[in-house]
């Protein structure tokens, strides 16, 4: 792992009227790292992700992703990131390969690259034989894995995953994390939010958000020692209560 910071956030503030959704966030993420972005519902995780992805402007602060400033060059960031939202957002009425072709095309991949990447990614998921199936008819677990594959199709440097495993069975969840590890080994930085604290233990670094602020940030093992808790789950409860 190199020491290059791929995400740099300094004093990020986002206000909606009087409500402060993100309060003075500052953190760095290194290339290839898996960052678990934890926090209770409404703590401000999705707001922060949207700012990092360039689809929402911060009220103040400095944000840079993959070397680009999120305020000045949000469109440059977009070419270098992949994003999978809370809401399933591939096209339900298109087939698997039509979805891959469309998003590959939007990211500027050539026809040949699209074919190649679609084949690679679907074979990895063991879904190549289903490539002409309409998405609507597929189980949620498959759809989530497909959404992840579409998000990494254009080989982005950073992948943002907003609760990618919610509503998915434990086996699929395990498979999903294998995909995340694979992507991380390829050098991609993974920024993932989750409510499953066992998943948080798999991350290189975790960030704990409470009421718009980051209360804890560090490696899971170090944090557990620092706060004297047995698991990240307990850490979450300890911090979220106060």
């Amino acid at each position: 792992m190199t020491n290059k910071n791929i995400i740099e956030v300094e004093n990020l503030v986002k206000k909606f009227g009087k409500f402060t959704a993100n309060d003075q966030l500052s953190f760095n993420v290194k290339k290839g790292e898996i960052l678990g972005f934890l926090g209770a519902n409404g703590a401000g995780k999705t707001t922060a992700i949207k700012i990092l992805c360039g689809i929402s402007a911060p009220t103040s602060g400095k944000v840079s992703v993959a070397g680009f400033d999120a305020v000045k060059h949000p469109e440059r960031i977009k070419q270098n990131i992949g994003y999978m939202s809370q809401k399933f957002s591939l096209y339900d009425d298109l087939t698997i390969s039509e979805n891959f072709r469309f998003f590959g095309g939007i990211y500027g991949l050539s026809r040949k690259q699209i074919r190649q990447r679609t084949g690679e990614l679907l074979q990895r998921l063991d879904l190549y034989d289903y490539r002409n199936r309409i998405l609507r008819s597929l189980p949620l677990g498959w759809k989530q894995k497909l959404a992840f594959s579409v998000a990494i199709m254009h080989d982005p440097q950073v992948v943002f995953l907003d609760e990618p495993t919610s509503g998915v069975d434990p086996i699929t969840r395990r498979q999903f994390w294998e995909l995340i590890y694979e992507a991380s080994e390829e050098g991609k930085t993974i920024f993932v939010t989750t409510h499953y604290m066992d998943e948080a233990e798999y991350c290189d670094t975790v960030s704990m958000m409470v009421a718009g602020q980051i209360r804890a940030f560090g490696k899971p093992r170090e944090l557990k020692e620092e706060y004297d808790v047995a698991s990240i789950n307990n850490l979450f409860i300890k911090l979220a209560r106060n």
Partner: protein
Amino acid sequence: MRTIGFLIQKEFIQIFRNKTLLPLIFAVPILQLVILVNAATLEMKKIDMTVVDKDMTSTSRQLIQKFDGSPFYQVDKARFSVKNAEADLKDNTADIVIHIPHGFEDDLLDEKEADVQFLINAINNTAAGLINAYTTSIISDYNNKILAEQIGKKFELPVEINYRYFFNTQLDYNIYMLPGILVILVTIIGMFLTALNIVREKELGTIEQLNVTPIKKYQFIIGKMLPFMVIALFELAFGLVIGHLFFNLPMEGSYAVLFLFTLVYLLVALGFGLFLSAISNSQQQVMFVMFFFMLTFILMSGIFTPTESMPEWAQTVNVINPFAYFMKVIRMIILKGSGLADIRHEIYSMLIYALIILSLAIWRYRKVA
């Protein structure tokens, strides 16, 4: 360019896979044209007439015969008093009552002058006006006949009016209505489909996935407009074919001019759809706002009533009514054969309009969550 291509490809796949939309695109024009063109007519084909003949002479019967012989009148009832006849007007079984007073024949023969009374049901004032016009023409015909009998064969009115109707020689109402209905059809298809399509992507959340891609605003907007433009133009062609096949719709002008104007017009119509989808968050909102505007614009467009006879303020409001421009131009091209030079003002207006509405839409459309 490639990005736009991928977007258009995706839209067409979705449209052709949509089990409700596709039949609608074909069925709506057929239904609208066949039903509306035939139903929305200002011609009175069957005027119910109640007769109160107090004279009971051959002359009075001759007059009634004049009406009964006309294809427009149907003499169904005979009453003995005006009061009874009025009841027919009240319960809507009669559109007009003819009252021939006692001594009609005598007066006509002795004094060369007699009175007839007509009572017309004016619940629908347009219909009442038409009935009045038809009746007057039958009576004047009857007068001429009497005068001819009295004076002899050489009789001629000093000033005789000879009508010749231009551009719609038979005063065929279908030919007037059909282009108007085509305007509504093309606009609804274009405007509705564009607006609903984008808002649907908002509802499903797929627009968020698009917003995190490096797709450019203009690519998105062109990619969304082009498919519906093609469908709307296809709709016009389809409607014209139906018009030619089933309604003897003429085509005095050139198809090229018509399609060119439609293209410019669609920039405005689809621009409206885009703008609306940019400021709405649900399909319900879009439908509601669209319904309000459509209804007002269509009624003011001159489809049924000529815009020239509207009050001045209404004509001023029509400056922002895209329907009014198209309604005027399509009739000019189809019925009158107007060329590019004749409609250049409308083309300029539409171009300016398109520029404004598209700028608004692009300004309001944000690539944000």
